[in-house]
């Protein structure tokens, strides 16, 4: 924890105080956090930061910061990770992963190297595979159902 605070502090030494006993209200803006080496290469870094931020804007207070790392750590349980994964992939924050969200995810994953028709094909396949209730988008139950069977989820969604 101390180390985490150290990292938080070094991102903006002027702003972050060393002493938290008075519970100050300090938030770091998204830009600073995105440049952390663990997150820099991640295509979903903005989404990650947004989903942990309390005000939804992307600024993280220290509590949120710690929260984020605790979920990404290898000790967090699978369900918790699934919840946050769902939040991350839900770009328009409507609590559903709709087709537009999928397209954005895909583009971020492949850095836009797929053609438009390939993208549509993949998104349609995903909805076909995972959508259980037939509403054309993935609710949390669908997502959870699909992720819980995936062998690779824990392997990759973990930061040491």
């Amino acid at each position: 924890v101390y180390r985490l605070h150290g990292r938080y502090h070094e991102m903006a030494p002027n702003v972050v105080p060393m002493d938290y006993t008075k519970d100050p209200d300090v938030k770091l803006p998204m830009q600073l956090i995105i440049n952390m080496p663990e997150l820099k290469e991640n295509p979903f870094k903005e989404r990650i930061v947004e989903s942990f931020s309390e005000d939804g804007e992307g600024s993280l207070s220290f509590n949120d910061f710690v929260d984020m790392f605790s979920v990404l750590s290898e000790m967090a349980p699978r369900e918790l990770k699934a919840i946050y994964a769902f939040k991350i992939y839900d770009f328009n924050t409507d609590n559903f992963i709709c087709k537009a969200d999928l397209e954005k995810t895909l583009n971020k994953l492949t850095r836009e190297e797929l053609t438009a028709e390939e993208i549509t094909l993949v998104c349609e396949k995903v909805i076909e595979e995972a959508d259980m209730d037939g509403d054309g988008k993935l609710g949390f139950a669908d997502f959870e159902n699909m992720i819980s069977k995936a062998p690779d989820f824990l392997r990759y969604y973990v930061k040491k």
Partner: protein
Amino acid sequence: EDNGSQQNRASRRKNYQRKNRDGKKAREEGGQKKDRGKTAPTKDQKESENKEKKTTKRGKEGEKKDRKNSTSSASSNSSDEESLSEEELAMLKEQVEQKKKLISTMRNKPWRMVKKLSVLREAQDFVEKFEGALGKGKGKKLYAYKMMMAKKWVKFKRDFENFKTQCIPWEMKIKEVESHFGSSVASYFIFLRWMYGVNLVLFGLIFGLVIIPEVLMGMPYGSLPRKTVPRAEQATAMDFSVLWDFEGYIKYSALFYGYYNNQRTIGWLKYRLPMAYFMVGISVFGYSLMVVIRSMARNANESTADGDDNNFIFSWKMFTSWDYLIGNPETADNKFASITTSFKESIVDEQESNKDENIHLRRFLRVLANVLIICCLCGSGYLIYFVVKRSQTFSKMQNVGWYERNEVEIVMSLLGMFCPPLFETIAALENYHPRIGLKWQLGRIFALFLGNLYTFLLALMDDVNEKLAEEDVVRNITHWTLLGHHNSSAGNDSTATPPPLDPADVPRGPCWETTVGIEFVRLTVSDILVTFITILVGDFIRACFVRFVNYCWCWDLEAGFPSYAEFDISGNVLGLVFNQGMIWMGSFYAPGLVGINVLRLLTSMYFQCWAVMSSNVPHARVFKASKSNNFYMGLLLLILFLSLLPVAYTIMSLPPSFDCGPFSGKKRMYDVIQETIELDFPLFVAKIFSYVANPGLIIPAILLMVLTIYYLNAVSKAYQRANAELKKKMQMQREEEKNKRNNKGSTNPMLQDLEDLLTPSTKTESPPKQAEDKKIESPNGTSPVRKPGRGEFQAGSPMAGGRGAAFTPPSQVFVTQPRTLGIRAPYPGQPRPWGHPLGPLPGRGRGQAYY
């Protein structure tokens, strides 16, 4: 309980500190590391039932200060608690347990931090206040120590695993190739690496058990006739051209069979070299066989562990393929490339499965293609035969140029270079899925090379027979020469021993084994050269040409004719497999051959990785390699058997040369075993062996093995059937769930037809067939008349209990019966859970009164 609470308090302190990050950092407790905070919750999750264990763990991790705190607070609290009564104690205990559980699962809740903190503080206060009564702190330290050791051990094991994976050679190189070119190209390199490992082991065996003893403990060069270059050849023995042909000094070195002495034991260790030579030769084959089969079995295991994963391919690719641990930009680039490739592969797979075309045209084209290819194969076979015959006449002539001497090898290499692309162009007619096309291509090239190899062997056999005939003559000559030498020297002085004849002057027999060894080594070396030159010219020079000359050429070189080469997987794999076959064949007669191969594989790995990355482009149609590498392994196994045959034949039926090699002087090579048993082992061993070798014992043993094979085969088929059935059940269940949530009644058109046909009151029974009928949990939209008997019957079935589903209303079950009936129609043979008589399924829309 007392023990637990003591630690509980300690752990609570720690927990409190952990949760209260912003409050406690400034204090010394801030010295805790983040990972300690992390390790505790895992243990919580695992052992939340076992509260004492959990709390002891947490307690163990706490600082000494924690323990001191806990003991002090324990003593202060205990005095408060005496006043409580029994029931209040029990109730309090329960509440305390609840709060503890809340604390332990706090991490798992997706609340915001602030909420978590406030709830946590409340719970901790409560627990702290009321737990004093239940404290005892003995024995905690020892337990804590044990837990700490356990944790350290787990961490150590994990680090060791990480270290081991880092040690796998070339892992990063292969990953890089994989991310750019796809998994099928990478599978070639993985295969290459595996081969390298096998060859290394073989090399170690041969080198350590045969070559080293001979070199260290055997007679040195020049002491025996077989070890010395004959006088006639000594003038040219060091010439490069002679050395390149593996004559001269190389021929008379430990690399070849002829060098080895047939002394029964050598050196002060009494090392039995001939026996060792023979056993090592056999064990080379034995080890290779074992390794190949084990690898095949492992692959087969993995491929059947597929399970249900075909259902979510795209979803998983989308959501789980990014590796959140990547921090390096170059790795990230690789990962992006690999994700893109992976998506493309799946898309190709998807599109293939959706294609449907004119069947007849396809069949005709395929037959045509096969006919053409068979013609090519026959043509090449005849060409090789012709060339070999010619080379035999050449060897009789005196004045042979370089071309005539190497004609056979040249022709074979040329065929190997040009025929595969020819096959590929013809195969374009066939229009298979790329993965299947690859298999056909491999099969055809295999046939081509097989023809080459066996023609080569036939030529070699002719050669050997000639040499055997020659040997008789030379043997006589040698005998008389030696005799003559003795007589002449004895004539001078009959009592003194005659001076030994200089080894270089003794007339030599043609050592056919060494000749064979030399031929194989030559073939291998030329094969290596041809491969490297092909890669260099075909890929690299071509890429340079296309890149640089493109500026001043009339048509676009990159898109048009030469363009960049694609990595030829099939050609390379087959090259590797055949190379290995030749190694296996030749290693008995040329022990140094395996060493040459090891070097070759090593350089080939680096060279090909470089060539692939620098001058190849990914395939236009990227496809995933089939999950199991069994196809390559199958080829390898076949080649292993085929290369075992010639060696076994020569060992069993040809007499060894009389003056070279470890078996010289014996009638057959395997006589060495007989000799060893007679002379080195006690008598009863010889008797045992003679009994065991009795045909009356061996034939029943073979029969038994055949029966075992048959039985195991039958068992495995039964398992496969059961597996397939389970998969179908799961598939059905998935569809059921989908339908249930869709609330559309049913999506199966057959069922809808059925509902139209039948009226509610006259619905007939259909036999209960599958267990998943009971797995349906919620009723469908329609609710026809129930059949009471069946409902009860299904409730009693064993499957219902196992599934844990609630008892489903029979109407529900009935509705699903016809649907499953319809879908199940193609599988009449499957066993039914209640032992009903298996009958042919009724046609659509009709039920029968099976029960």
